[in-house]
């Protein structure tokens, strides 16, 4: 199977990470104002998730950790080389794993779905796919 060019994968990762920063920043801003993200299709899912005890870790909204992860992923998507390839892969792996856990919490613990959290989980999944393809296809090779 022919792999996409590394430049294409980096471009995709750059776009997704930038979009992810936007989503996570919106959730953080909505929370900092004492509210919750507005569910585009209506419903109370976003509010329920935002008000659950799982939305904060050590008093910090988990969306803040999302911003940090997306910024790091953007930082790995821009440069060439193995450090960026491995860094992008490991951060995306962590983000993807944590997104899986958060989705589990939404479905089975909080019993509510927040569209913004789903959007972030989808972005993180796509970033993991892009970074895993980049790592497997190009790590150890010339930039």
């Amino acid at each position, binding site marked *: 199977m022919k792999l996409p060019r590394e430049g294409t994968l980096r471009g995709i990762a750059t776009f997704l990470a930038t979009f992810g920063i936007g989503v996570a920043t919106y959730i953080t801003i909505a929370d900092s104002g004492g509210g*919750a993200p507005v569910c585009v299709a209506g419903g*109370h899912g976003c*509010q*329920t998730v935002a*008000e*659950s*005890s799982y939305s*904060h870790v050590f*008093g910090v909204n988990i969306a803040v950790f999302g911003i940090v992860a997306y910024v790091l992923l953007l930082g790995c998507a821009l440069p060439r080389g*193995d450090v960026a390839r*491995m860094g992008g*892969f*490991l951060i995306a*792996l*962590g983000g*993807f*794993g*944590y997104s*899986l*856990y958060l989705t*589990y*919490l939404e479905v*089975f*613990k*909080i*019993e*509510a779905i927040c569209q913004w959290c789903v959007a972030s989980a989808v972005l993180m999944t796509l970033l993991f796919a892009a970074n*895993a393809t980049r*790592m*497997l296809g190009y*790590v*150890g*090779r*010339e930039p």
Partner: protein
Amino acid sequence: MNGNDERRQQLIKIGSAAVFLAIVAVAVLIVVSGSDNGGGDASNVKGAPEVNRLLGGIPQKGLVLGESSAKVALVEFGDLQCPVCKGYSEEVLPAVIESRVRSGEATIEFRNYTIIGPESIPAGAAAIAAGKQGRGWEFVELFYRNQGTEDSGYVTDGFLKAVAEGAGVPDIAQWEKDRKDKAVVSEVEETTAEARNIGFEGTPSFAVEGPGTKGLEPIGTPRSVSALEEAISKAR
């Protein structure tokens, strides 16, 4: 195999190990959060989404729910262990909260009237402590939805913590301190004495205060949503 290939193999091995570790970490997180079914964990507590939907977006201070500018104050004297209060909380109050409290017309305050037994006191103190962190009503509503048999020993530290966590109390360590604070426990006793002085003999008992009343007027235990709404309208 040249040096680049060796390096590539090595990095892919590291990546594979990381994937394995990530799978283990996620599995452990899910198993741990799913198996915490004993006391002291929010996973024991049911109904948090429903309570959040009921109360979401309504301001609260202490155990007062609603806009501070509301003209009418409805006061519920209740016991968290009381099954009738639980029924009220689930069947009557949601409609009143939606029609009169969310609209800004009235506030509703929960005051402890501990008549069931000794376990009602720590439960009531825990609600007041949750109120100090803006989650008092979530605590009260969630407690009712997870209420056990009166004085059966279910009001343990673990159960209270589970309710507090389910209610979204942000600082559990502070809540633990507050709920054991003498002043907080005294408040439970004071509101209980107040209810007795008013003449209430059971829970839940209600009182209402507004421009149309002479101070806090007892209205007993109205049997329906419309009766409570009527009392609020008269107090305006």
